[in-house]
């Protein structure tokens, strides 16, 4: 089923409900509105504010596979933190891995698809990200 919005919502809800992720992003005790501003469903980072830690989840372009009824879809999760907090960014990725790898999301299993170390972000910030892939029936 082609329901990318629902996939992102389910993952966003998993992160929002996880105490470890909220703690690592300094979101413990914050309102839902504040949490939704920092765990976002797009890759935007050019508006990062001072001391902000942000988790971005978004789709990467699908990859065709030999069976035309399926595509390999890829979700990327990037964590942006102030440059001095890079340790927390990797801890967030470790927690994301524990929550998503080989777990069923909308009846499809997600598999770790690699990480790349440091990724581009605003000056004064640090970003790292990892990807999770799954096969989607069209």
């Amino acid at each position, binding site marked *: 089923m082609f329901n990318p919005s629902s996939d992102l919502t389910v993952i966003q809800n998993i992160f929002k409900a996880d105490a470890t992720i909220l703690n690592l992003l300094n979101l413990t005790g914050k309102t839902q509105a504040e949490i939704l501003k920092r765990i976002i469903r797009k*890759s935007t980072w050019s508006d990062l504010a001072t001391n902000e830690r942000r988790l971005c989840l978004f789709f990467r372009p699908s990859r065709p596979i*030999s069976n035309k009824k399926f595509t390999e879809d890829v979700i990327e999760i990037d964590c942006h933190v102030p440059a001095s907090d890079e340790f927390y960014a990797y801890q967030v990725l470790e927690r994301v891995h524990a929550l998503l790898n080989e777990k069923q999301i909308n009846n499809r299993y997600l598999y770790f698809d690699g990480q790349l170390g440091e990724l581009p972000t*605003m000056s004064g910030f640090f970003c790292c990200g990892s990807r999770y892939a799954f096969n989607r029936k069209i």
Partner: protein
Amino acid sequence: MSIRFDGQACADFLYLNLVGAMKQLQRELLAEAKQGMLTPEGAESLLEDEIRDIAGIIVAGIIGGAWAVMDEFGIGHMLDTSNPALQNYKNSALWNPLRQDDNYVRGRPAGAYTDIFGEQRTSTGKMAGRIIEYPQGRFVPHPPSHAMQTAMRWMQNGRFKKKIQETVQNFPFGKFLICDTK
């Protein structure tokens, strides 16, 4: 009774399959790079290059114009000074001689000049040497996206290898075996 293998036909067909795989990888690379761009102009200026065979090596690249370069390396005072082509650009006639080491975009001296797109323009000189970046001016700087570099890094991170492996694994080698039972 004999078994024959048509090696030449097999090699030719495998080559065609590999070109197809390279074409798909090129499309994926382009899509990844476009998605990472911070400006629509940067994304639009990226294109697939023609697949070429240079002395038996299949080459599939993506190309971009000035917008893509500015998106990749940033503009204004936020530009990435590690850009290997920056020094050449600064030494060229395209660079505004009134821009200083802080790289802020400044007004040009009065007279005709060629902009980064190669177009002839004329400056009145009213803002010569003054910062024209937002909020002092209308020029909005942005940080480097490094979209093309990052897309290539993701693709190198196992994707290229996986696609070529799939192509070889799914290749019908058996079609080129000819069994003669006489």
